[in-house]
């Protein structure tokens, strides 16, 4: 319950999105003819919520009887989610018509999933994390199958739903065991009792099960099976949302719980487990991505590899690691959305032009698209002047400071492998002759979205110090 005006202002980003959902729902049911405003309203809502979150970043507080936190890095996550979703919505306006799934519900579902993500990022209680997780996941299952007339879309949705529901079971078991041993679901209380319970088998099992549930959402190695199929089957813009917003939200939830445990002195309890997970995800993602001929599958495997780099930051178990993860997530969100955005622009009707051979000779025909995609690919590969490099740099530095130099070396090795398949696209675009003839339909909103995300990638790459200092100052 909101007790005073200040609490109301601090909860405003969440309330704005909630109001936006209701407005969109009302438009959907009572103003069929005004449907074209639907995406624009949700974009305005996203930008309003994200800007407010950035403006009120200094006001740290807890709300609703210690259930939600606001301010600080929570607001950084709010910014990532809302602006990422705004870019996805902007990309989807024309894409959905091409894809044959121009339903107003799409925009409502995106807003609902963002609300879920925000609850996860701000949670101070395991139940709130679970609530946010489910709100996000259920919206994602529906979004994966948004084109219900296409068989692959249905397959993606069902696969995501069945595996997602299964791993949600892990999370719930984990929460149950933690609650059983600690006697509370409040994260502060769990952190307080961590040292006392760190030898309790049930408690540690509960924490691991909880983490496994989220490993599925972040697409880490043994729980990655759904990623390529779901990304391939669902619409490209939605796949962009899964790989960025979904991953960032799951990481935010992990950071909340683990971050609380760090302060309690349990930073290195899970390091061996996390290190194995990181190495397997990085190497598996990078090596299997080389063999892919479909660009969406390639990006899916690359997203597995990126989950691996991010887990290095968790394994390091220090505050540099957490700051590195948050920076990397911000950078990764926009470079990946840029890449998925270009793919959605080039994709023709009936999912044509998804083969990487379609990109041969693109630079001669569409120099603008080729240049933007190259920047995204360089950033994803982690080449120096762009955001991706600094993300990896901060995480590897954190690993070295935590005496995990070998893990950083494996990370560098794996990103060296990944350069091959990222740069292959660039080589195809600039140095090969075009093999098939196709016309990329003009799509100004989509192009705008891609340009915005590429600009953000460049800004993060030019001024990484200010951003990382801002993030570190809240830890």
């Amino acid at each position, binding site marked *: 319950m909101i007790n005073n005006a200040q609490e109301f202002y601090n909860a405003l980003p969440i309330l704005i999105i909630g109001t936006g959902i*209701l407005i969109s729902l009302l438009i959907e049911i009572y103003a069929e003819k005004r449907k074209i405003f639907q995406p624009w309203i949700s974009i305005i809502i996203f930008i309003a919520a994200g800007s407010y979150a950035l403006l009120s970043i200094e006001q740290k507080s807890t709300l609703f009887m210690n259930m939600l936190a606001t301010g600080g890095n929570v607001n950084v996550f709010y910014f990532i989610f809302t602006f990422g979703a705004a870019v996805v919505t902007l990309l989807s306006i024309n894409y959905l018509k091409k894809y044959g799934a121009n339903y107003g519900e799409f925009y409502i579902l995106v807003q609902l999933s963002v609300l879920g993500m925000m609850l996860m990022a701000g949670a101070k209680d395991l139940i709130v994390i679970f609530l946010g997780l489910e709100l996000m996941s259920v919206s994602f299952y529906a979004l994966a199958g948004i084109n219900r007339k296409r068989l692959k879309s249905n397959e993606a949705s069902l696969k995501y739903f069945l595996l997602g529901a299964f791993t949600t079971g892990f999370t719930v078991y984990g929460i149950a065991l933690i609650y059983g041993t600690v006697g509370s679901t409040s994260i502060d209380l769990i952190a307080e009792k961590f040292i006392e319970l760190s030898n309790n088998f049930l408690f540690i099992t509960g924490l691991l099960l909880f983490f496994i549930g989220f490993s599925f959402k972040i697409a880490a190695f043994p729980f990655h099976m759904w990623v390529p199929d779901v990304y391939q089957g669902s619409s490209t813009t939605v796949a962009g949302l899964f790989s960025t917003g979904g991953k960032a939200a799951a990481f935010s939830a992990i950071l909340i719980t683990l971050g609380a445990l760090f302060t309690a002195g349990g930073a290195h309890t899970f390091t061996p487990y996390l290190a194995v997970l990181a190495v397997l995800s990085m190497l598996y993602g990078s090596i299997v991505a080389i063999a892919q001929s479909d660009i969406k599958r390639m990006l899916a495997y690359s997203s597995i590899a990126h989950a691996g780099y991010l887990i290095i930051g968790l394994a390091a178990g220090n505050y540099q690691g957490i700051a590195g993860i948050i920076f990397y997530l911000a950078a990764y969100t926009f470079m990946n959305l840029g890449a998925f955005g270009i793919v959605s622009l080039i994709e023709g009707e009936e999912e044509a032009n998804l083969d990487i051979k379609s990109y041969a000779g693109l630079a001669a025909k569409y120099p603008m698209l080729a240049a933007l995609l190259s920047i995204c690919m360089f950033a994803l590969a982690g080449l120096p002047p762009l955001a991706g490099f600094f993300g990896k740099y901060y995480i590897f530095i954190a690993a070295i400071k935590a005496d995990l130099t070998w893990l950083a070396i494996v990370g560098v090795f794996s990103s060296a492998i990944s350069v091959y398949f990222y740069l292959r696209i660039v080589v195809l675009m600039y140095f090969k002759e075009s093999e098939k003839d196709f016309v990329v339909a003009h799509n100004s909103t989509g192009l705008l979205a891609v340009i915005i995300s590429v600009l953000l990638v460049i800004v993060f790459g030019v001024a990484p110090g200010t951003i990382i200092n801002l993030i570190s100052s809240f830890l």
Partner: protein
Amino acid sequence: MPMLTEFGKIFIFLLTAILFVVVAVVAAKLIRPSRPTREKLLTYECGENTEGTPWVKFNIRFYVVALIFLIFDVEVVLLIPWAMVYQSFGFSGYIVGVIFLLLLGLGMAYEWRKGDLEWERPKIVPPVLAEKMNLEKPDQLTPKEISI
């Protein structure tokens, strides 16, 4: 003897439950005479003769109805505790309850407007009619064509 934890008690409860079932079934199996007939082996359907397999496709509408039911189910579950104590919540508690009801009402309005409360008649055409109309797929008929 070490003390049992709360989980230990539940474990014993589970163990007893499993044992109870196993012992009852095995004992019955050992004691009873076994004279199976066809009638006895059929699935019990309240005394009626069985008709076909239960593995048939159900109309998707059943699921929609189940989902709609869920809304009202949740509404009742959450409103009862609120109704029990809402006098002590005061005005703000009342407002929270009203907001909750409005949200559910919006969900209800969405279903209503999208036509999920209508039970669409299945568009089945007898095979003979389909043949006469020279159509290969009778299930793809529009209602207008059926009325011929």
